[in-house]
């Protein structure tokens, strides 16, 4: 006897909408049991995770700040994934964008450079991210090299380049040899939206990106092309769509968005270039893209939700003395249920009896 997953003939749209809610419900049930086992009040714990961060302006800002790079990168990745182009190297494109933009900030440091500095940084970062993403895209199109491997490997190249620059040429001369550039000048810093807060212009840019992606995918021929090439490559070929061209295009766009996210993070919340500017945003964004079902609005929600679990996890650590490990378990369980529920929309379990098949084969 064997248990196999069998593709469902048709998928239910209602279930597709309800599935994430079922996943969250199952997560809450599981976590309630877990909290009870470790002797914490489950209601208070869930409150610390989900409700408390939503009840004050400070936490809401922090959720937006945390979600900003995740959403921007994930939107770009979703375009790639829809077109069947597997960009796994957003982390590297993020870092290269940060490096390229910082170049202007470092070179204009202490000069009377005007307000053009920040816009120039953003443009250069996006261009650098796009070019960096084009390397795996072109290798794929020209030589058939696996873009999954090449884009992933370029992450380490970007990481080491950043490392070299902040330890060497760009090191803060007054920084005791510590690996960081000096703090960026005000003209090279992303403006804050609320005085004394941390919410910055980047969050607005992220919203614009979400809106643009929604329009691109929903209202334009290009968007249609992307979806057809991914979903039905043969039909797309008959339709005269050029899959290679789309690989180049989607890689460039996702690289540009990751690069933009990189410089916004560096010129915003961090304020200078240093190693470790990304706690794995480029990889977490892959999760965000799929949690959001490769849909722009879904990605926005998924990004905010993931950010909520980070902020809530910290508040639970502080308020309830719940160890960080539990937060990680919590995030893991959540992803597990989301993916499981998603699979069960498209597939169903079926018991297969091999003996019977053998009998049939013999007959």
């Amino acid at each position, binding site marked *: 006897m064997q248990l196999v997953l069998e593709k469902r003939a048709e998928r239910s749209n209602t279930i597709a909408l309800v599935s994430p809610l079922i996943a969250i419900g199952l997560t809450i049930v599981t976590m309630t049991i877990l909290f009870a086992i470790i002797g914490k009040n489950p*209601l*208070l714990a869930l*409150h610390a995770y989900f*409700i*408390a961060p939503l*009840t004050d302006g*400070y936490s809401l800002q*922090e959720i937006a*700040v*945390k979600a900003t790079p995740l959403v921007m990168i994930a939107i770009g990745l979703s375009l790639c994934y829809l077109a069947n182009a597997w960009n796994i190297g957003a982390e590297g494109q993020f870092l290269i964008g940060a490096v390229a933009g910082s170049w202007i900030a470092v070179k204009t440091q202490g000069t009377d450079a005007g307000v053009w500095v920040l816009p120039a940084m953003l443009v250069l970062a996006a261009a650098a991210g796009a070019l960096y993403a084009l390397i795996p895209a072109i290798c794929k199109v020209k030589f058939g090299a696996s873009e999954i491997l090449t884009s992933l490997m370029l992450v380490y190249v970007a990481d080491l380049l950043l*490392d*070299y620059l902040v*330890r*060497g040429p760009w*090191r803060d001369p007054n920084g*005791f*040899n*510590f*690996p960081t550039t000096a*703090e960026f000048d005000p003209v090279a810093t992303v403006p804050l939206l609320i005085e*004394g807060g*941390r919410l910055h212009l980047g969050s607005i840019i992220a919203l614009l990106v979400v809106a643009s992606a929604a329009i691109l995918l929903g209202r334009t021929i290009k968007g249609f092309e992307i979806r057809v090439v991914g979903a039905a490559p043969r039909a797309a070929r008959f339709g005269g769509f050029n899959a290679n061209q789309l690989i180049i295009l989607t890689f460039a766009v996702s690289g540009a968005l990751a690069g933009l996210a990189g410089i916004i*993070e560096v010129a915003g*919340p*961090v*304020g*200078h270039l*240093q190693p*470790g*500017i*990304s*706690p794995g945003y480029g990889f977490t964004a892959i999760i965000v893209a799929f949690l959001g079902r490769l849909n722009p609005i879904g990605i926005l929600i998924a990004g905010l939700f993931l950010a909520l679990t*980070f*902020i809530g996890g*910290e*508040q639970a*650590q*502080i*308020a309830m*003395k719940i*160890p*960080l*490990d539990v937060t990680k378990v919590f995030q893991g369980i959540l992803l597990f249920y989301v993916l499981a529920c998603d699979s069960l929309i498209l597939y169903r379990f079926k018991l297969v009896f091999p003996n019977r098949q053998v009998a049939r084969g013999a007959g």
Partner: protein
Amino acid sequence: MRKSLLALAAGLLLAGSVSAASAADKLKVGFIYLGPIGDLGWTYQHELARQALVKEFGDKIETTYLENVPEGPDAERAIEQLVRAGNKLIFTTSFGYMDPTLKVAKKYPNVHFEHATGYKRDKNMSTYSSKWYQGRYIQGLIAAKMSKSGVLGYIGSFPIPEVVSGINATMLAAQTINPNIKVKIIWANTWFDPGKEADAAKALIDQGADVIMQHTDSPAAMQIASERGKLAFGQDSEMIKFGPKAQLTSILDTWAPYYIARVKAELDGTWKSEDTWGGLDSHMFAMAPYTNMPDDVKKIAEDAQAAITAGTLQPFKCPVIGQDGKEVECKGGTSLDAGQILGMNFYVKGIDDKLPGK
């Protein structure tokens, strides 16, 4: 349904505020940790000091920590979360928290901050660090005595002054025993990555090193040295159980006396911003027992420890000869001054390695 949810939320909020009120008269002390509390190295030692605080002050304080906080954009939020949870004295225990701590300190002038191993201060932000190079000097003496091959293996974390001064102190000490001693250095570019640290230790042993020293935080190198029958020094914490036949000694970060003094000052209302850089004399760190060595080596180590504690032995006594063969300017009269050590950015003569980024 919505009403009952609201009522539930209100009830929970109420419960939260009641518990906050009962804790209001306690001093809340917060900690930001770089690693997991179970790293058995750097973070573990801070955690031991936190536990010592709880033992010392009991009900007078309430401590909270956030562990595994990366030194990137998340640090500022983590620190601010502690402030907003009512912590009045906050220890941020890694160099990379310097700028985030400063930012939060400027925003909350009534909260006091203690930042480990940094150089930026404010009227409500102190810094504290240890003169670990003193311990490295003692280790250098032991290593040169114990090494048969004359090659020491050194696992560096990042080429920052604290690490470079440790390498130099080791070399200067070792040269007093064996002028031809060699130090091989591998930069792990991490503070905590047991896999990488173990690989570095293996590579160093394969290159002929028979005494392994490390400036990374896990006991992985100690385990490798132990397996291969070589000798090693622990780091941050007591690591003898990972190499009962391998550990010569270990530099133990003993933060408890400092933390207790600072919390006491906060409770008494006498806390003020300070720059503490303590050595063996002020018990900012200690040496683990000298083990796996003959008595004469042990005596050399103990004598050096006594002399450093008394201030009669200066690891960076002038003249210090740089890697290029030129004498380093002697700003402190008889030895290099604090600024030269805290910003150390050069190797001493005899080190066969290029400082990364130079």
